[in-house]
């Protein structure tokens, strides 16, 4: 009922999110809210903008890091970028970009493969707060050691610190990485195709959706990819249950990189 109310009032559709983890997040928010009954959350979410913001942020908690799953980025360098070199210009869509760490990681990999200048990256998310953070490109310095390890494992050719500068407890990504990135609001559950892409990355977002919504989103990706384009999913995600399965062949079974063959 809460999800129906949110959809009708705000247009955000959580009705086909995977129920178990969604229920957990809602219960967590409920416990922190101090309310006595779950049903009290409905009027609060509908009428109090601040509470709705909290709700929205709770629904999109994502854990991310620079060069997460470093071998994925290594596969991008070794298999995907060489295949895309035939194009004079490519478009990349980072769907569900969260706070941007993986977008900047892609930008760095493209720079080092001397492909950045021929790329336009669209980084989208439905959470405006995450988008803002992504646009700023400022992260806590406490994660840097992990990020440096990841960068090296991913085949980094220089040093991660070449692409950012540190001040006090933060690290800011350099502006040169942002030049070819457009950050925009896009909701995978409700919005449509906005361009024809050569590469779509959507990692560890689909696990939060049920099969119906996963299929909707995978169809959206198939419609947004040109022939020979690549789709990259999270390491535990699959095309197996979707209606677009036969439009793709597998480029990397382990890193979940698929090539569109229709």
């Amino acid at each position, binding site marked *: 009922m809460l999800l129906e109310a949110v959809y009708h009032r705000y247009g955000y559709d959580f009705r086909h999110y995977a*129920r*178990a*983890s969604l229920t*957990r997040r809602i219960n967590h928010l409920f416990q922190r809210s101090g309310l006595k009954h779950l049903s009290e959350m409905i009027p609060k979410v509908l009428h109090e903008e601040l509470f709705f913001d909290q709700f929205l942020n709770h629904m999109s*908690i994502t854990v991310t890091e620079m060069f997460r799953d470093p071998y994925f980025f290594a596969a991008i360098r070794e298999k995907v970028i060489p295949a895309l070199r035939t194009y004079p210009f490519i478009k990349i869509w980072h769907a569900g970009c969260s706070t941007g760490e993986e977008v900047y990681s892609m930008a760095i990999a493209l720079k080092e493969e001397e492909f950045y200048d021929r790329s336009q990256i669209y980084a989208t998310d439905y959470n405006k707060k995450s988008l803002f953070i992504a646009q700023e490109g400022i992260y806590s310095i406490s994660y840097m050691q992990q990020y440096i390890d990841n960068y090296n494992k991913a085949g980094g050719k220089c040093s991660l610190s070449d692409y950012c500068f540190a001040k006090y407890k933060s690290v800011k990504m350099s502006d040169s990485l942002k030049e070819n990135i457009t950050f925009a609001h896009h909701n995978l559950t409700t919005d449509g195709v906005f361009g024809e892409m050569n590469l779509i990355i959507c990692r560890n977002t689909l*696990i939060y959706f*049920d099969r119906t919504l996963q299929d909707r989103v995978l169809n959206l990706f198939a419609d947004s990819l040109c022939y020979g384009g690549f789709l990259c999913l999270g390491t*535990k995600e699959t095309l197996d249950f979707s209606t677009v399965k036969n439009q793709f062949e597998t480029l990397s079974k382990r890193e979940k990189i698929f090539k569109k063959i229709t």
Partner: protein
Amino acid sequence: MSLEHSYRAIVIGVSAGGLEALSLILPELPESFALPIIVVQHLCEGRENNIPKYLNSKSSILVKEADEKEVIQPGTVYLAPAGYHLLIETDRSLSLSLDPRVNYARPSIDILFESAADVYEEELIGIILTGANNDGSHGLRKIKQLGGLTIVQDPVTAASDCMPLMAIQATEVDHILALEEIGPFLRRFHSTL
């Protein structure tokens, strides 16, 4: 405990000492064992996880890593992949999550047990084995609250007694069993699947 009571699933939580514990229990189960078993074992995230393969080679029933959206089948053991929380949906499928760690753990035993309790209620058996932290106490308590059967490995026989002890403190557990008694105990349960 009533043998007429029909159970439909077993969940197991284990941490430090897990491989030995599971290696002792799973081979005890016959090929005809009908209940599915879903396991969270605290693991280090690494490139390869050979534990499912290893345990599968020692068991008569199928042991595998849980796959995203996989529907739970009878007589199969599902192991949570390293670094992901494992949850059960109302349609008896498995789903993964990358939510933050709970009690420093991902996969978290509490998360599995709580979602399993919601789905299976009194038709669930929950087992806490050896471990060095307190993950699983809340989950086991919820299983008990919803009418399920709760079993904890006797702390005296555990490689790490912390997790069993915390579980026993949090709930009035139905059975405290030595490690080698657990396999034979489970053999007595057949579901009407």
